[in-house]
């Protein structure tokens, strides 16, 4: 079945440093969504990318969808302590179903 791989599994940074997580799918996706889960919390939707090569920005967060629609990345510029959490990509092969990556857990040293 479809697999979504996400790297790195963990990332620890100093506050103010940048952070990037990468997502790769074994199959072409119709769209990709990104979610953030705080410790003890539930996944919260961040953004959805649909078009090949799409780039979207939310303040310090930049999301990219690859040209082949099989990979994606999330980049955070100048991390803040509020960015702590686990970031998941979730791919949709075409139906409503989402296939989640295993997540990248971000911790920040203030």
């Amino acid at each position, binding site marked *: 079945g479809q697999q979504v791989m*996400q790297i790195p599994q963990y990332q620890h940074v100093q506050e103010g440093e940048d952070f990037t997580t990468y997502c790769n799918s074994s199959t072409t996706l*119709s*769209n990709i*969504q990104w979610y953030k889960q705080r410790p003890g*919390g*539930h*996944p*919260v*939707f961040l953004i*959805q990318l*649909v078009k090949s090569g799409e780039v979207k920005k939310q303040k310090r967060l930049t999301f990219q969808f690859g040209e082949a629609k099989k990979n994606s990345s999330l980049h955070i510029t100048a991390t803040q302590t509020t960015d702590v959490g686990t970031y*998941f990509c*979730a791919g*949709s092969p075409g*139906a*409503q*179903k*989402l*296939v*989640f*990556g*295993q*997540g990248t857990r971000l911790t920040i040293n203030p």
Partner: protein
Amino acid sequence: GAGVSQSPRYKVAKRGQDVALRCDPISGHVSLFWYQQALGQGPEFLTYFQNEAQLDKSGLPSDRFFAERPEGSVSTLKIQRTQQEDSAVYLCASSPVDRNQPQHFGDGTRLSIL
């Protein structure tokens, strides 16, 4: 309510017991999903409803798992003859009818099987 509501928040059961987990989606949301999240892992899809119709149950790990949404709103996930490997957080999510819409998650039910 404003968000997806799940109950109970925590459930402890002995191996072999049956459990029932409830999800109350956002009002007006047609699509409802169940996921299983093991510690340190991403949510894994279990099943999907559009209104009362269960359109995809490909993620249910065994025939001990059963989900229903009889009136197209509240859903129940039932696990019969629980096993230790069923211990996980069970997340419910809902979304509007359109395809590929963002999913809104509840806080989940943390199930522990002793």
